[in-house]
């Protein structure tokens, strides 16, 4: 049909999509009959057959009319009006797309029914089993309310602290995650390179020095753990800052004598540093996946090879660095944007529950790890919400302030900040609301607050006490919901 006019890339995409759909259909069909298949001794690799069959079906159907993939991927712009009209007139259940859609939809629903093990027999025959528990839940044991209120207050403050601490961090991060701000930012290639490589080198160097110096020391009088714990981040930070200022200075040197051998050597050294850093990062990730370990295990088990990896990285880095002139503008902003976005999304997709598990092992049981867990998640979530606000501001004032000769920082202070304060406040209150609700869950893993009590009572099957806790949580969440809605109404 009309598909002939479309580009090869679109055709390929359409085919891939159709392939995926029909492979899914075949695999789903096999899954439906899995018990009889296992009984017949068919190996699990039978599912692989879905791919060739799916490809075959997709190919056949694409020949015989408009498939779903074509409908989704291909542009309809170049169809003639007559063709469109004729498509309109065909009833949906007569078109291939309609039939396929219906079939896939039904198949998915049936599979879903199977996989979630929906059991209507239990629904209608076992209702009385929960009677005992529900009865107790309906008779709250009020004497425990004193200690529970105490825990509830802990929960509210836990949520408050995590929100308050996350605000400045999220606000800072959100600018780096806003496309309209970051995509304008460029820096000279030399300085970009020096500003990344030397700080990293400085931090690594200081880290190494500290772990060497304080590694073996033991003392009865001094709290070595504290000294080491303090010295490590502080000195690493010092290394970072010193490296950064050094990096800019050296880069300026390279810029001043463009074309000279010294300039090339500096850029090559920077490039080598970057390459080694990148190679180390990539190899570490690969080692984690492949060796189930880390860089150090890779180094131990595959002895000379880690050096080869670093050397290859260094050479690639040198080539990369010398491809540009040191004074050329490099789009460092989009790069930072990408990295920050990635980190935010990764952090946000890990539930506070999991963060709490991590911090509980660090800070021991109690409200503190719970607060930190919520804070980390809040920074990521608020950072994203804030950055979206920044992206949707009116660009007019930015243009005006920029045109007056203001710096980027001044432009942000004058044209961006006034526009984003009301939504920021609104989102922050909303986040506090969310944090109160989440902090009840955090308690389940030892993150303090009322959740911890809820978990204890539930483990002991003390349903009447559980009832009181649940009532308290519901009351607080409802109140907070109302209050925050009122405040936000006022502000926006």
């Amino acid at each position, binding site marked *: 049909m009309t598909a002939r006019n479309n580009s090869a890339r679109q055709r390929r995409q359409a085919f891939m999509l159709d392939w995926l759909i029909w492979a899914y259909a075949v695999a789903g069909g096999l899954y439906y009959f899995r018990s009889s298949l296992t009984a017949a001794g068919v190996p699990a690799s039978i599912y692989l057959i879905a791919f060739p069959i799916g490809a075959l079906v997709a190919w056949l159907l694409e020949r015989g009319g408009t498939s779903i993939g074509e409908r989704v991927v291909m542009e309809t712009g170049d169809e003639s009006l007559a063709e469109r009209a004729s498509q309109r007139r065909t009833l949906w259940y007569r078109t291939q797309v309609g039939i396929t859609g219906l079939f896939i939809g039904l198949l998915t629903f049936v599979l879903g029914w199977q996989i979630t093990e929906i059991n209507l027999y239990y629904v209608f025959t076992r209702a009385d089993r929960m009677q005992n528990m529900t009865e107790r839940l309906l008779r709250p044991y009020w004497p425990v309310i004193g200690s529970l209120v105490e825990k509830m207050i802990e929960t509210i403050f836990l949520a408050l602290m995590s929100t308050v601490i996350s605000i400045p961090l999220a606000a800072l991060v959100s600018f780096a995650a806003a496309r309209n701000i970051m995509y304008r930012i460029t820096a000279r290639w030399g300085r970009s390179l020096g500003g990344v490589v030397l700080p990293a080198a400085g931090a690594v160097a200081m880290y190494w020095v500290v772990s060497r110096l304080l590694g073996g020391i033991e003392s009865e009088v001094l709290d070595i753990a504290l000294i080491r714990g303090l010295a490590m981040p502080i000195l690493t930070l010092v290394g970072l800052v010193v490296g950064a200022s050094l990096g800019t200075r050296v880069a300026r040197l390279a810029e001043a004598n463009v074309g000279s051998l010294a300039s090339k050597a500096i850029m090559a050294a920077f490039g080598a540093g970057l390459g080694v850093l990148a190679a180390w990062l990539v190899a570490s990730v690969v080692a984690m996946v492949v060796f189930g370990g880390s860089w150090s295990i890779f180094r131990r088990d595959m002895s000379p090879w880690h050096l080869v990896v670093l050397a290859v990285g260094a050479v690639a880095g040198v080539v990369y660095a010398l491809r540009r002139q040191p004074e050329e503008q490099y789009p460092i902003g989009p790069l930072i944007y990408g990295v920050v976005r990635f980190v935010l999304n990764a952090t946000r997709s890990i539930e506070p529950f999991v963060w709490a598990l991590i911090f509980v092992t660090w800070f021991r049981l109690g409200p503190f790890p719970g607060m930190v867990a919520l804070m980390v998640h809040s920074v990521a979530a608020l950072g994203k919400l804030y950055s979206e606000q920044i992206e949707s501001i*009116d660009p*007019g*004032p930015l*243009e*005006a*302030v*920029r*045109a*007056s*000769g*203001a*710096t980027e*920082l*001044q432009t942000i*202070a*004058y*044209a961006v900040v*006034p*526009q984003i*304060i*009301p939504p920021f406040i609104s989102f922050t209150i909303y986040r506090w609301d969310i944090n109160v609700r989440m902090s009840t869950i955090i308690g389940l893993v030892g993150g303090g607050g009322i959740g911890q009590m809820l978990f204890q009572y539930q483990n002991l099957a003390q349903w009447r006490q559980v009832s009181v806790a649940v009532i308290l949580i519901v009351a607080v969440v409802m109140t907070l919901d109302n209050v925050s809605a009122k405040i936000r109404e006022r502000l926006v």
Partner: protein
Amino acid sequence: MLEIRNLTKVYEGGVLALDDVSLTVRDGEFLVIIGLSGSGKSTLMRCINRLVEPTSGQVLYNGYDITAAPPEELRRIRRKIGMVFQHFNLVTRSTVLTNVLSGRLGYVSNLAGVMHRFSADDLALAMRNLERVGIAEKAYARANELSGGQQQRVGIARALMQEPELMLADEPVSALDPATSHSVLRYLELVNREDGITVMCNLHFLDLARRYATRIVALKAGRLIFDGQPGEIDRDRFREIYGQEAEEVGVD
């Protein structure tokens, strides 16, 4: 003052907004640029202070090539070029005074600007400029409480804070009614005559252009098709610029 040489701008997606435009702006002129919507007037202005990066060509400001200026140098040139916008581009939640002061940012240090710190002189200058455009009593009102004409006057005061040598006005009155249009343009005329600030102004209406311009240029589809005195635009010229179907409508 300004020399534009073979300026071409192709936007991403291949739209040719400016096609080899060359133009010289002389000191003290009130130059009006006319043309249909989409003829490249706004792009031309934005290429001068590089809010839009030109694809090729040069813009020489008193002999200095703006198009090749590094960021620091560009900021120094920008502060000598004031700009007034079609939609005023004020920060509507900030006060009028804050908006006006933001025009001074090019002169203060980075940090002082961020901290909203301005010297007493700058503050006095801001009040003086507000008085000039006749809205000193609104200094502490929020910008969105002002009418359109008043907002545009704030825009002019903000541009005057730069103590500019050149004023770019990008359709400064197309969002305003006829009476307000004249009052705003009269302020531009005033700074042009009294302060000797060269003005480059985009206008839609030919009769406004005839009334205020000392020289008119016309753009059509990104090309410069007319450059001359206001009186030279007769019926044929008009149709050449605005198309055969066009009828001249006026603003009182």
